[in-house]
């Protein structure tokens, strides 16, 4: 299986390639990509040079242009697709059907992947994207079990890619506006979710509150680690119950399911984390490359190698196991 690794900066891209990434994904430094964070991403020159570096080392580069173009400003997204072709990207990762149609029509030779932000969750829609826009690979949303992924692969020629490690969306990706409801900034329109610009920490009576957009969604004792207030992983009350009603502050770690995902016909495993440091990326990539190589050679996989790197030290296999639902 191919491992697809995140790079938020040229340095992270080089680190990922050196650590054994088959493929790296990244984005331009603007609102065309879903990790539009300050200080992250690539300008055009950096992109061209980074892709040349990856190609020299036998790795591929995918460019995520996976926000939904703003009405009246589509040219910015069209230019991103054109520049991806010019930079010799191996594929673009798109979510919006208007942008897919544009790329299909104007850059037919530029390989197209469907972003997880399009949340294509069954074989009919996967085949629809393949047939209509020549999509060669679909990144599946994190709402499916392993048997459901196997069933999709049995019904399609389109390649599938699944997330195995890192941050975890609890909602169907690209179909969530919790963040814009509370802060005005959304993944679909702005490429951000629960943005740091709207986070406040407030200390009172020995307690530390974490607020997003003025809503208190975490409360810990002084000195305890305070998780980042991501909306869907916040603490809320409904009637008599208070807790993480949507999801605990966990991150995805599906390394134990890799053999099953391979059997399910998955082409590529994706690691989340374009906002992560160079050392994090190197370590995760090195570990996953070793695991994939072991799997391909029929050897036992090293176990529990990534737990230390997870957000808040707590892990989940997410929707891949049916009980998660």
């Amino acid at each position, binding site marked *: 299986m191919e491992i697809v690794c995140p790079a938020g900066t040229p340095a992270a891209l080089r680190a990922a390639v050196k650590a054994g990434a088959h493929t790296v994904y990244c984005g331009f430094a603007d609102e065309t990509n879903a990790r539009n964070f300050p200080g992250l991403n690539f300008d055009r020159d950096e992109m061209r040079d980074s892709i040349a570096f990856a190609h020299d080392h036998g790795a591929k580069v995918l460019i995520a242009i996976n926000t939904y*173009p703003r009405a009246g400003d589509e040219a910015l997204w069209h230019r991103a697709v054109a520049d991806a072709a010019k930079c010799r990207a191996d594929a673009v990762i798109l979510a919006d059907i208007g942008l897919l149609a544009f790329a299909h029509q104007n850059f037919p030779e530029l390989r197209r992947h469907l972003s997880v932000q399009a949340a294509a969750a069954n074989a009919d*829609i996967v085949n629809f994207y393949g047939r209509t826009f020549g999509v060669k690979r679909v990144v599946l949303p994190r709402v499916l079990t392993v048997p459901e992924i196997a069933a999709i692969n049995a019904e399609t020629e389109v390649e599938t890619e699944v997330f195995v490690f890192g941050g975890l969306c609890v909602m169907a990706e690209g179909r969530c506006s919790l963040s814009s409801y509370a802060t*005005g900034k959304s993944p679909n329109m702005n490429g951000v979710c629960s943005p740091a610009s709207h986070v406040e920490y407030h200390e009172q009576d020995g307690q530390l509150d974490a607020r997003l957009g003025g809503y208190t969604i975490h409360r810990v004792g002084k000195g305890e680690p305070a998780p980042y207030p991501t909306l869907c992983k916040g603490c809320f009350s409904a009637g008599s119950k208070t807790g993480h009603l949507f999801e605990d502050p966990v991150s995805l770690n599906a390394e134990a399911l890799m053999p099953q995902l391979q059997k399910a016909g998955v082409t590529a495993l994706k690691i989340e984390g374009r906002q992560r440091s160079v050392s994090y990326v190197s370590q995760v990539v090195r570990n996953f490359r070793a695991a994939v190589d072991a799997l391909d050679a029929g050897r036992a996989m090293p176990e529990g190698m990534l737990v230390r790197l997870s957000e808040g030290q707590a892990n989940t296999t997410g929707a891949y196991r049916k009980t998660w639902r």
Partner: protein
Amino acid sequence: MELTVGAVQFFWKPEFWAQFHADLADAPVDRVVLGELVCSKRLPFYQDLIPEAVATLQAAGKEVVLTSLALITLRRERKLMAELAEMGVEIEINDLTALAYLPEGTAFSVGPLVNAYNEGTLAWLAARGATRISLPPELPLGSIRVLAQAAKALGVQIEVWGHGRLPLAISGRCYHSRLYGRPKDNCQYACEEDPDGRPVETLDQQPFLAINGVQTLSDTHACTLNQIDALRDAGVAALRLSPQSQRFADLCRIYRAMLEGSVAPEAAIAQLTALTPEVRLSDGFIDGARGVAWSVESTA
């Protein structure tokens, strides 16, 4: 402008569902979208009542449209979509999967849960047969205006989320089940207890969201009574009113009076507030700093 009644988002008891739709025959609305949007497990409880509701509403002169599910994953859900396409009633797609079952050339509508954010997507959907697009609720007035103008040239009607709790997210996980510590497959239909969703508060007891099975909604009810002139000026053809269990027919009458110009926004909002005093309102997605904002409060 027209008024569309959106599909019921909640799980209502069959007799309540039937009465609600029978009453809509007399409500001052033009179009009714019905069927199951949120969870396929609910449908068997009232599926048999749908044909009669369709017939009653059509006889009353309403345009009737059937919705697709918002998230289609299971084989049985795909089969359901195939059956829906064969019912001979216009379909509103709320998951692009439904398109796989609509023959090329079939006219259809696009619901608010399909990501139609820009002119390129609008043009593609129109070429595929879309005649009406209900825009994603998070779109600001600037985008609505651009899309309504582009739609005019394509012969497509643009609708916006007019009133009701905002559909903010859909998931594979059922939050009602999770609340009761049950797996989704044994949910025991917990969502039926909350005909308008289960309120969710922050740690400071601020009302914030509402849980509705696999769906997450806003606590506030979106309200466009203070935006109607701007939306009309932008070229919007219809407002969507989302069903609520209490005083819905009265709500429809307030919006109709507003569209006819027989009441001013302040008076209409006062009537609405008198109707459901416990409800908080918002219109921030249209012209505020964030979705939860309410233009009346900030100008007061």
